[in-house]
């Protein structure tokens, strides 16, 4: 049984999804949109966010159509047990990978900006232990943590990017609409990948207190995430220039390096930003890890979900330690992002379509 198996409220679900989405995207999104659309990059963010919301409607409708049922149950009803279990295994592998790359990226960023000499393994292990300490309490405490950490994370990040405004040159955002439609389309698709993480809602569907408000939940969370991405992209473009953004590996952090706090309390803010980054990475990793354990729990029908936390632990560590360098990590991130969008948007759409055709419906509970 899940301990603390309370349902999560609408605000909790919103912040949980936002904090799951925001992490790696904040680091690399400015570079990606700059590569695709130069100064039009910020438009890509808006289009991408809109597309993600449209795409998530399938998932939301599916959860509303089968209230209180797990994704495994829904898919075994619609496409049969075998395929459902296959999807379940894919989901678990995907979520394990996602946890690993989040933690791995974090370790790399910490090594680059904060603790140059600390062994990466130490950072990975300590971050994983912290995550395990949280998620062994269950779903509702994880959502509660997200609720508490959200303002602690968002307000300082917002303040930091605001501090860059005096140095920013907003003419970098011009010219507007100068990109061919084709690269706009490709860029938007690629931007959608930065919203990876929405698939956790698929697994948390049965734990929502108000499944009837799921559209609103999704709208607010994707909307807020889009706004934050938009802010980061605009400030990064204006702060360090579009061309420079293309050459940096983590432009979202690099810009913070250039900021000096007013009143000169801090000479450089990058270590402070990294401290906040710990929160962002921690919340993202814990929701992926938790979802992975929950999926395993649904798949096997076991009594205790904590057991799977222990089972996944060595795999996550192994995968996180596997990539030899940053380039390999980037490749892995790309794979995870694509799979995430397939699982979060295409798969629910497909299952929903089949469910409508086969006239399968959940109970009213």
């Amino acid at each position, binding site marked *: 049984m899940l301990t603390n198996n*309370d349902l999560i409220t609408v605000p909790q679900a919103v912040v949980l999804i936002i904090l799951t989405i925001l992490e790696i995207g904040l680091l690399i999104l400015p570079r990606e949109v700059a590569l695709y659309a130069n100064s039009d990059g910020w438009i890509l963010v808006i289009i991408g966010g809109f597309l993600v919301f449209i795409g998530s409607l399938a998932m939301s409708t599916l959860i509303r159509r089968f209230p209180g049922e797990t994704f495994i149950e829904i898919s075994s009803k619609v496409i049969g047990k075998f395929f459902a279990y296959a999807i379940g295994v894919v989901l678990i592998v995907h979520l394990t990978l996602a946890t690993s790359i989040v933690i791995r990226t974090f370790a790399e960023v910490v090594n680059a900006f*904060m603790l140059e000499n600390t062994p990466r393994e130490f950072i990975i292990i300590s971050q994983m232990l912290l995550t395990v300490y949280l998620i062994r309490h269950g779903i509702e405490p994880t959502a509660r*943590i997200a609720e*508490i*950490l959200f303002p602690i994370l968002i307000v300082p990040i917002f303040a930091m990017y605001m501090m860059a405004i005096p140095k920013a040159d907003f003419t970098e955002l011009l010219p507007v609409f100068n990109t061919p439609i084709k690269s706009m389309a490709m860029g938007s698709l690629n931007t959608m990948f930065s919203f990876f993480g929405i698939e956790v809602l698929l697994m948390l569907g049965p734990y929502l207190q108000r499944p009837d408000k799921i559209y609103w939940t999704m709208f607010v969370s994707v909307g807020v995430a889009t706004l934050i991405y938009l802010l980061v992209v605009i400030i990064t473009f204006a702060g360090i220039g579009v061309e420079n953004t293309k050459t940096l590996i983590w432009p979202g952090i690099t810009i913070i390096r250039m900021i000096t706090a007013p009143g000169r309390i801090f*000479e450089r803010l990058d*270590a402070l930003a*990294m*401290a906040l980054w*710990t929160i962002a990475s921690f919340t993202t990793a814990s929701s992926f890890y938790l979802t992975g354990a929950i999926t395993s729990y649904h798949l096997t029908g076991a009594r205790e979900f904590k057991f799977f936390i222990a089972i996944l632990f060595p795999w996550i560590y192994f995968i996180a330690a596997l990539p030899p360098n940053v380039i390999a990590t980037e490749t892995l991130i790309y794979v995870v992002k694509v799979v995430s969008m397939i699982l979060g948007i295409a798969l629910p759409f497909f299952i929903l379509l089949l469910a409508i055709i086969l006239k399968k419906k959940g109970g009213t509970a």
Partner: protein
Amino acid sequence: MTNIFSKLYNNKKEELYFERDMSPDKSRKLKANIDENLNIVQEYLYDCDDVITRDFYMVLTPKHKMSLMYIDGMVQMTTVQEDILKPLMLFARQFSLEHSVGEKFFDMVKEGLLTAGDLKETDNFGEVILGILSGDTVLFIDKLEKALLISTRGWEKRGVQEPSTEAVIRGPRDGFTETYRTNVALVRRRLKDPNLKVKTIKLGRHTRTDVGIMYIQGVAKPSIVDEILKRLNTIDISCVLESGYIEQMIEGDWLSPFPQLRRTERPDVVAASLVEGNVAILCDNTPFALLAPTTFLSLFQSPEDYYERWYIVSMIRILRFIAGFFALTFPALYIAMTTFHPGMLPTDLALSIAAAREGVPFSAVLESLIMVISLEVLREAGVRLPGPIGQTIGIVGGLVVGEAAVRAGIVSPIMVIVVAVNAISSFAIPNYSVAISFRLLTFVLIMLASIAGLYGIMIGLLGLTIHLVTLKSFGAHYLSPFVSFRFSESKDSLIRGPLPAMEIRPGYTRPQDLDRINDRRHDTIDKAGDERADE
């Protein structure tokens, strides 16, 4: 006498007269013969020299033997003499009595002769012995299988004084004393409400300490009251000398560094909390009452917060949280900044720290450990010593030794500032229990900061947050109102809103009556939320 002794202590059958909690057997009934009764009481209270037996005759013809038993020093002698002995021995002889024997005679003594204020009948030895030990006086009457327990409790006690741990500038000056009944009365005087209930139980096998819970019916949630009573009744320890024993026995998570019950010396705090839906646990022999459920936030509050105007209080509350943050992290931040992230500091400051640290033989970690530990030693030394010497210790330790250590080049002057700010910040936290656990956690954070700098501090703080978020005090979230946040509750959180705007009672106690101000608008506010939290 040896016969009785062997009966009591060597014969297994006779030992059963004592129950497991050391109280005498209540099923052992009084006998009709007064001498036999006195002998049995003597068996129990053998070798207790402070027990006094006073035999007398009420009327000389027919001779009616009576006997008083009490403990010297625990009874008010004026009551015993004026209200028991005088009526029975003097007044009764001045006119002829209607009844001289039996049930009616007993009632006449009880209702017509004794002038003591509070008395009750008893027919078993359990109550008799316990009564004597609690300071009551027992009156045995010949040829009756009953005795009278007359309340004569009164002993040397400290008067109502200003509490020393929770001083206020504005607010009442009376604090709890060591006497349970006085403490209950101090609260009752503030709440003239028939719904204020007091339930007393006795705890501790040897001490038989009076422990009472107080709550307002119709405000406090019954399940919380039941839960507290249930947990209190499971306590089976040899002694309860202070409410700290109870606190540690009934708190949910004893691995937590944070107290899950709030303790206070002030009756006004208890009264205010009762109105907010808390349950108070009062314990005899200690001026410290316990309040449950408790939140992290309430440990940062002072009673004065509600007496002063809200702007000032809001500012002070925010200052307290800043102080709490520094009390927790300041030495750790210093280590992280100087050792791992010197780039964060402004260049001038970094240079002056480096210049100050020149010649200091120890690393920043060791330096701060030395300073923080010596400060803890100073604090402990200052607490134990009598007042004037304690202050001297502060001056000698803080100023003389600190100054000398800096001059000798053992520690840097900046370190002295860091530790002093850290210590002063921790004293700004109103609740001593929290302040002390913060100082303990400072060491953990120093360790983490020395391993991984700012990242280590974040790991520590996040771990602490996880612990606090998952901690519950009698079903209430420890971090409420920040979890399952509701705007109306933010008026009494980091800031304190103006009193007219604080329309509802805090939600963490799940009060049955939510209105603080008489206004029925909030009657049905989130009933659904209530049910959810109950499960």
